[in-house]
């Protein structure tokens, strides 16, 4: 039976890697070359012209927009979720905090797509349409439920005696948050940060609906417009896809365990 399992594993590997391999090698082919040579063979005379083309087409601007949106959303999201998680755990004797916790749990079920129209309305009324902030604010809101869930689970595991001793030393709750909870919750904070960053970096719907000008585009949206722009210049499209993916793959290589932890975070407990 084992050889079936083994060969099955290799087949799946090919299925997973094939598109990735293909898009990378295609990005190095010249357009003329691409049409005549075997599509799965690496480039016979590799070129960086496609990458140059993508960079010349404001790629750096889009990359920067994605960075601003991701950092601008993830840092506040994790910060306020951490504070809320602490409050929910340490203040669980207060009814309104228990209700808040339930609200966040139920909030996990709210799909972004279903509420995008009112979000659109709110953003317009706030006069934030076509700004990066328009993407940031809803992103923060939708990151909260899962972040609070994961972080509060972690904080709950901190022994009560430690909180007691902080209290006895005269520490305020704010002080305890940073001097006790923060170091002990660090693994969960890392995974929550990475998980949220990945989702926001790859987000498509919010930028699509809430921005309009080319100079406000984030990467996924830019990819989509590149596709229309480059038409049948497949190698150029391939280069744009590769460029947008490389940063994530690099981060994956560096911080894989945290990323993996993050994506199954809510479901383990």
């Amino acid at each position: 039976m084992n050889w079936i399992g083994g060969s099955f594993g290799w087949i799946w590997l090919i299925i997973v890697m094939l598109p990735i391999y293909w898009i990378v090698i295609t990005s190095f082919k010249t357009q003329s070359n691409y049409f005549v040579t075997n599509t799965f063979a690496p480039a016979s005379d590799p070129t960086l012209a496609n990458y140059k083309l993508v960079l010349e087409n404001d790629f750096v601007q889009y990359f920067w927009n994605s960075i601003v949106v991701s950092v601008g959303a993830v840092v506040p999201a994790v910060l306020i979720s951490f504070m809320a998680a602490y409050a929910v755990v340490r203040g669980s004797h207060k009814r309104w905090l228990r209700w808040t916790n339930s609200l966040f749990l139920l909030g996990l079920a709210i799909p972004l797509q279903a509420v995008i129209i009112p979000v659109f309305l709110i953003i317009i009324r706030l006069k934030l349409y076509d700004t990066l902030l328009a993407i940031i604010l809803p992103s923060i809101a939708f990151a909260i439920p899962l972040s609070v869930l994961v972080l509060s689970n972690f904080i709950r595991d901190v022994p009560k005696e430690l909180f007691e001793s902080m209290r006895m030393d005269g520490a305020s709750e704010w002080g305890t948050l940073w001097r006790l909870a923060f170091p002990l919750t660090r693994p969960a904070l890392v995974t929550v940060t990475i998980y949220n960053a990945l989702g926001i970096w790859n987000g498509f719907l919010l930028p699509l609906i809430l921005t309009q000008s080319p100079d406000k585009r984030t990467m996924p949206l830019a990819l989509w417009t590149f596709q229309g722009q480059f038409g049948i210049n497949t190698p150029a499209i391939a280069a744009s896809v590769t460029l947008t993916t490389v940063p994530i793959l690099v981060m994956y290589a560096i911080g894989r365990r945290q990323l993996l932890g993050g994506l199954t975070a809510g479901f383990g407990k």
Partner: protein
Amino acid sequence: MTTLAPPAVRVQEPTAAKGGRSGSVGWMAIPALLMFFAFAVVPLVGVFVLSFTTWDSIGPIHPSGLTSWKAALGDKELLHSVYVTFLIMGLSWLAQTPLSILIGVFLAARKRYRGILAVLYFIPLLLSSAAISITYKALLDPNFGIGAGLSLDFLNQDWLGNSTLAVSVLVFVVSWQYIPFHSLIYQGAVRQIPTSMYEAAEIDGAGRWRAFWSITLPQIRYTIVTSSTLMVVGSLTFFDLIFVLTGGGPGNSTRALALEMYQTGFMANQMGPASAIAVILVLVGLLLAQLLRRLGGKGDESQLEGA
């Protein structure tokens, strides 16, 4: 003369019901509560409200009772979108669940090279739906993609231009993107099955396949429910992938509910009916989640009997 000293009064500090004494901590939850309220709860209520109005996304919003609802429910396209949505939902569940279980079982075995495979298997999850869709669009191009490259005629179809094929391609791409995630969940679940169960089965003479059916599958029953719930509820609101891959086409053969909502609201500028569709999305999602919970049982019984 005796003076009565006032009885000593002990002042007791308020104690928290759990976790000992704590200072004021509630204020820390306020920022998150406000943000969530403003951009998630209010919009949720807002969709319901907007579905009773007429709005073209530019001018003022007019309350209009059931006009938008009548328009939405009377539209044949909506029925078709519901069909497309459930078709994709069912097909992608069928495509993903068995494979995810098998891969999860495969990865659960603690062999060295499987760890390396797991690292590679995981990569589709890192990519944006836009990147994945664009890659597959190029790969499946009838003139210049995989069909032409491998000179295999049957691969050289007009994948995305043919209605039936487009749905299949969509299901394939969805599976490619999300099987890694679900196989990870199953891997975790399978790893938790006590080996003693398998040992007992082996003693009784059960083969690998039998062990899979009689031990593995029942033991991961609740994981199947969890994974299926995520899959089903997630596929209800598919947007990014479909939008970039096919735009809902060809024609309307892949126009799922979320795309129908986008089309109605942002292309045809009928925000009222679009909001009605959004409300339907929310209600169906809640219904499905409840249904799956019922189907899956309460999860109270211990699964470790016989371990």
